[in-house]
């Protein structure tokens, strides 16, 4: 399971991509992933918002994650 990081999320994690090792317990839902991130990197809870995209679509908290999904962490957007 790979997770992509952009903008300030990339700065917080220190990397643009993290791979969960095969043998580690993986978050089963978007909500679980957010919780796990916030626990590991407290800086995430200071952001204005935090969204998750699954296969390049915004995903609600109850969306289930499978290991083949492309998952991305979307901090507050600021295009334009």
């Amino acid at each position: 399971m790979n997770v992509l990081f952009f903008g300030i999320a990339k700065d917080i994690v220190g990397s643009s991509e993290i791979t969960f090792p095969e043998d580690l317990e993986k978050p089963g839902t978007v909500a679980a992933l957010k919780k796990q991130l916030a626990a590991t990197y407290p800086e995430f809870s200071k952001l204005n918002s935090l969204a998750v995209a699954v296969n390049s679509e915004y995903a609600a908290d109850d969306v289930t994650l499978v290991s083949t999904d492309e998952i991305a962490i979307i901090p507050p957007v600021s295009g334009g």
Partner: protein
Amino acid sequence: MEKIIEIVDTIDTAKVYSELSDAKSGGICVFVGTVREFTNEEKVVALEFETYKVMALKEMEKIADKAMEKWSLNKVIMRHAVGEKSVTEPVVIVGASSAHRDACFEACRFLIDTLKETVPIWKKEKFKNNSVWVSAHP
């Protein structure tokens, strides 16, 4: 209906009118976002744009499709630049053409407002001594 949706390195503002021009259109409305020299009195050296490209293009498509549903439009364009941009450089251009001007004005405003809300693009303001991801923190 034609639409042009792109993430590019450099925006050529000169060609947008010919891209939106159309025999069925009496009006074309275009918005260009550019780099301002000052943010809250602080001098900006440059803006740096980053995107999650595959998703950004999908979200821009959705916005263009929604605009075409809401208004009677002939052509729509949404083009955003990435990389480092200096003062006065264009960073985004959106526009629409329509038979009458109400539709293209309203659609153009909708395109830029919604782009700013949902498209995964991030802007870092670079000042002389530091840099800040815009809108990240309260």
